[in-house]
């Protein structure tokens, strides 16, 4: 369809300036730290020769704009430099850590959606009745608990007091799948509980909007049962804004859940960034910020591109 392809093209084009500005900001963030960039990048233990060669490499004698272009060129080739702490290339290091964060986040958000959508729909359908009041109260409460604290409490109860689940650490799924599951249960449940609150409230609010519209009345006037009215006419329309919300949540979390990873001592992307900040490992800091922003932009792009499935009107205007 013409309108659809136009919408897709427009949306794709719009991300380019955003990504460019993101790159500029990440680049200058490190440049704004007082001190010699080469020294910052190589760390305190670097020899004068190494420093000189990196200076030449970065083009530090060149204007800042040129330096940015050198850097951007490297980034586009996938070269994000070497970690100061252990000399490893930044990109593989990040991808490795990203797997851990992504596993937990994807499972948690998927579960949260599965709970939140029906809960929000039922709450909206029974607006102001007991079920609704209970659902709203529960989700508001969940929304108000900080994840790191909830994690700590669950850890205390299920890990330490009851001893049902391992307390800290991570085992890759590829090695021992069953053991791996026991390690991710607590972080996944923590994250899921937090996000269920936000998504349920969102779903409820948009379902209430939809339930007021005449086409819902029309569906009832056709003789459809309440179940079919809700599933066919309310759900798809009410899900559209929730879908955008899921994108925002997912995009935000995929970049790492630093605090939760700290609570459960998981080797995730967020923890990598925090450790790099403490270690003044600037190439890693730069890489993580860039990668996170990229993930966020891509996730939201995908979400927007799927949006016409729920609301065909967006391709119109």
């Amino acid at each position, binding site marked *: 369809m013409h309108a659809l392809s136009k919408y897709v093209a427009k949306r794709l084009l719009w991300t380019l300036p955003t990504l460019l500005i993101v790159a500029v900001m990440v680049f200058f963030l490190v440049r704004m730290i007082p001190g010699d960039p080469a020294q910052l990048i190589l760390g305190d233990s670097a020899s004068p020769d190494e420093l000189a060669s990196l200076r030449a490499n970065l083009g530090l004698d060149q204007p800042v704009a040129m330096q940015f272009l050198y850097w951007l060129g490297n980034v586009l080739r996938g070269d994000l430099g070497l970690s100061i702490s252990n000399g490893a290339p930044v990109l593989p290091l990040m991808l490795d850590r990203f797997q851990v964060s992504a596993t937990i986040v994807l499972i948690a958000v998927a579960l949260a959606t599965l709970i939140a959508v029906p809960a929000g729909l039922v709450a909206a359908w029974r607006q102001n009745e007991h079920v609704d009041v209970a659902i709203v109260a529960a989700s508001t409460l969940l929304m108000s608990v900080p994840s790191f604290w909830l994690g700590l409490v669950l850890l205390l109860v299920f890990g330490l007091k009851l001893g049902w689940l391992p307390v800290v650490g991570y085992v890759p799924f590829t090695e021992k799948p069953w053991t791996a599951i026991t390690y991710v249960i607590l972080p996944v449940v923590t994250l899921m509980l937090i996000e269920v609150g936000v998504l349920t409230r969102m779903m409820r609010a948009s379902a209430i909007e939809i339930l007021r519209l005449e086409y819902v009345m*029309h569906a009832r*006037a*056709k003789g459809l049962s309440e179940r079919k009215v809700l599933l066919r006419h309310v759900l*798809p329309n009410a899900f559209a804004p929730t879908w955008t919300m899921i994108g925002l949540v997912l995009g935000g979390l995929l970049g790492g859940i630093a605090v939760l990873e700290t609570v459960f001592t998981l080797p995730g992307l967020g923890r990598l960034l925090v450790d790099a900040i403490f270690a003044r490992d600037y190439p890693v800091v730069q890489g993580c910020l860039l990668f996170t922003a990229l993930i966020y932009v891509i996730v939201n792009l995908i979400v927007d591109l799927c949006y016409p499935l729920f609301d065909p009107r967006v391709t*119109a205007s």
Partner: protein
Amino acid sequence: MNAETSRPLLDVRDLRVTTSNGHPILHDVSFDVEAGSIVALVGESGSGKTVAARAAMRLLPKAITPVSGKILFEGNDVLKMTGSEIRKVRGAEIGMVFQEPMVSLNPAMTIGAQLVEGLRLHEKLSVEAARARASEMLERVKIPNPEACLAAFPHQFSGGMRQRIMLASVMLLRPKLLIADEPTTALDTLTQREVMEVMVDLTRTFGTSVLLITHNLGLVAQYAKKVFVLERGRLIESGPVEEVLHRPKEQYTRTLIDALPKRDHGRVPPAEAAPLIEARGVEVTFSGAGNMFSTAEKKLAVRGVSLGVRPGEVVAVVGGSGSGKTTLGRAMLGLLPLSGGDILFRGRPMASADRAAARDYRLQCQLVFQDPYSSLDPRQKIAEIVGEPLIHGPKLSGREKAERVSDILGEVGLAGLGDRYPHALSGGQRQRVAIARAVIRNPAFVVADEPVSALDMTIQKQVLDLFRKLQENHGFACLFISHDLGAVSRVADRIVVMQQGLIVEEGSVGQILDHPQHPYTQALLEATPTLGLAA
């Protein structure tokens, strides 16, 4: 015709409906619809007519409940049916068409899916057979290219087309009764007629009875056989249409009838004079939603219009939606950039006017908006709204200002309401505020952009009468924009008919109403609901 005629199809008896906190909405209302007839339920907003109609299908919101009375459909009480029984009646036996074509179809489902859904719910049909039936029905409601329509989404159609699709969706099941709740109120005159004609034609073919809910007695006179008049939840008058409309017993019914458009020859046209304001070959383009990466194609909304308004003259601009009449009005106030032509105010071209002349033009020309709900700042009190234009006039003391405001509020019939906020006023009252704001500075020229089309018929008449009185007292020239030839005939000296950005016909009120030349004018005139006897 058949044995069933003895018993009405729908028989509502002593229906009492209240809100959950006991506030009554309907007081023991009774009405009935005989098989094969069109019956009208008439009343203004707040009369309870919509509640009565929805009660017949048990589609009331949770907070509103019937407390006593019966709703007999083919002898069975709808109020006593179980959930599954009522669902068998809904759609299959009683169909319903709603007022707002923009929100009455599900935006996320194709037209085909929505049409097939209802059909397959009540009849055992394969998807293919159901689609074939749906396609055939779309053709009957005059949707061009029905196959493509089935695959399309509602947002791809105009209001009038959506309303016909809606009608097709409901009539697919050949219900015995069709409840049409203000089915054409949101549409312009020509589209309104199209939809009504299709509806009457279809229901006649299928032998479906119609309960028409409306505030427009013109429609009733034209289409209905029997009428019930509701006022604030009470049934005040009923009977055959001829009888009720010709010999109304109740004062309220008479008010409704009086509100219908009527010819009025009372106006003396102002003397020949040089035009106060003149459009010369005015063109306005709209560039659609452009953005960083694409420039949308440009659309000419007004395509070279020349029109002069003499001091004290009221010129009506009439046309359907998309005719460019609103754009022309805005352009004559200098609110839109012209892509061609010029506006002359007091003989001076405004394109090359100096600052003082431009300022004078801006202050001498005022506008009354269509929607009284959005044209008043919700955070200002009425007196502030009405008094605000005085800031730019000659310096006045606080006392003089307050006097001017209270004078004008008195003149528009809102004395003592200056301390209220807009949300505390009714639609008609708000429109009076908007009119007061426009005339407080004694402007030379006022554009009134569909000032009454958002109001009930009786309120329309009051506001039109007020507008006419103010025009006579203050003597401003006026461009009166409307889609309704009926409303225009009350206030105008001259009528200009626009279609697709061009003036297709112009002349005195008498010329246009009695001897319309252009086919578009003739169509408009024919579509205008009147009582027939009034002219």
